[in-house]
């Protein structure tokens, strides 16, 4: 493996009571790569994702980001480290306008505890929010409250919000969940474009979808890593085929 590892988890275990959601997960992610974590429902993908984004802390094990152990840091510091996520369930600020959603996300890096200056004074944040909406293709919806957007647009908005913190690592949890085929296509193109400039980790259970754009795949099953490798390697892996696809060829 090359020396430029951006993120690694070493011996990470997460236990809920007596139930092991993750057991001894050790993976390294290279800077600039697009890695997908796949596995059937209940494999521990979401738990793993929550550990990477700081929503949960591991029971044991370490998580290194750019050489620093971040396993025990509070969630809100992750954005400042350079890690951003968009979650599985659409999570935007529904009553606020679309552009305000992104502006607030962008504001987090620039100004937080200012009680006095009118926010309109920070014109660069508004410009940045507008630009990000362009990137994800919903700039024309900027004035609407976020709840008025279509489902696919809301997911795009979430990605814009994640990008607003200028992350070096972008975590996407099932970004196409609940999308129509057309919306899915647009989203995958968007992700591919984003991955050109930063490290992306994608969590998906629709394996077919990620084969085309991922450089590497990590397969989880029952909280443990059962395989990792290039899409071709995974495609040829018998274990994966057995547990994930019931033996069918894909």
């Amino acid at each position, binding site marked *: 493996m090359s020396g430029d590892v951006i993120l690694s988890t070493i011996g990470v275990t997460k236990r809920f009571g007596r139930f092991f959601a993750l057991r001894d997960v050790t993976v390294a992610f290279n800077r600039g790569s697009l890695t997908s974590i796949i596995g059937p429902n209940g494999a521990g993908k979401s738990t793993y994702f929550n550990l990477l984004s700081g929503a949960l802390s591991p029971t044991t094990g370490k998580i290194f980001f750019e050489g620093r152990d971040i396993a025990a840091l509070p969630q*809100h510091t992750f954005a400042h480290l350079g890690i951003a996520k968009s979650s599985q369930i659409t999570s935007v600020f529904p009553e*606020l306008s679309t552009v305000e959603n992104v502006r607030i996300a962008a504001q987090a890096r620039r100004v937080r505890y200012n009680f006095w200056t009118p*926010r309109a004074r920070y014109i660069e944040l508004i410009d940045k929010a507008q630009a990000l909406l362009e990137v994800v293709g919903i700039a024309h919806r900027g004035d609407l409250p976020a709840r008025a957007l279509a489902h696919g647009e809301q997911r795009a908005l979430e990605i814009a919000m994640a990008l*607003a913190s200028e992350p070096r690592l972008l975590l996407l949890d099932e970004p196409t969940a609940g999308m129509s085929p057309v919306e899915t296509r647009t989203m995958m193109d968007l992700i591919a474009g984003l991955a050109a400039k930063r490290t992306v980790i994608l969590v998906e259970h629709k394996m077919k979808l990620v084969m085309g754009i991922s450089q590497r795949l990590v397969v989880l099953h029952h909280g443990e890593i059962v395989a990792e490798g290039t899409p071709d390697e995974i495609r040829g892996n018998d274990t994966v085929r057995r547990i994930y696809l019931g033996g069918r060829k894909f």
Partner: protein
Amino acid sequence: MRPLSLALTAQRARDGTDALTRRRVLIAALFLGVFPWLMPYKALAINVLIYGLYAVGFNLLYGYLGMLSFGHAAFFGTGAYGCGIVVARWGKPWFLAIPAGVFSAAVVALAIGYLAIRTRGIYFAMVTLALAQCVYYVFFQAESLTGGENGLRGVNVRSISLPGVSLNLLRPTTKYYFILFFVVVALWIVSRILASPFGAVIEAIREREARARACGYNVAAFKLITFVVSGALCGLAGALNAIHLSTVPIESLVYETSGLAVIMSLLGGTGTFFGPFVGAAAFLLIQDLTALWTEHWQLIAGAVYMIFVLFFPRGIWGSVLEWLYR
């Protein structure tokens, strides 16, 4: 669900692009300047100022941050006693007493907030209620300082000497404008906070706490700061009330007083800038006028709340806004 037009209006208000919003403090000041002549008598107009401010302080936490507290009487009461004790027991002037009231309310808010923000939803409401009851008990028992059940008498600020002028607070109109000054300053501060980046974050927390945290905001810190600011504003209202009444009744600390803030905010419209003020004015007027012609004023008051909840859920001011921006 709120109509889109209203959400857009609200957004323009947040961005400060709306004319009404940019001038909202000035508009409030001008209106409140002539307000005493619209009310049956001055003491009632002063009550509206004070309870309006109390509700505005509460609404910062409830309407903008989305946390329902049943314990705000603790801050109103602490502010009143803080100011009252400095005047009545220690004989110090008003310009020390009012900040003392605000400061003591903020300290109590810090303590209660520190404990309470670990809980959420209805449990948050109940923890604040319980802790506020404990505050009530402390003041009730500290009779040598607070006067206990008899209340604290002698918070007498008869006149105020400023460079060049002397204000006679026994004159109701003078007292009104003296108190209005503080209320307008407080409204201006609230308006600035709401328009600031900080204000954007607390609304984001109300909308979706988890997302705000993922964006990189320390949600607990924002909640605690907002709680303390809200408590300090209510403390200012309490301190002004002590000067207005020249006594501090122990009733300032009872849970019905906490309930008052909730009712006034809901009646006027939560999460709107003017709503709580409108709610306070409506509440006090209804009470005052109905009490004059019937002993059963609570029947009318109760019915009015029910009608509002059922048919005007956005409150008086919220409904006005909705109608304006149809």
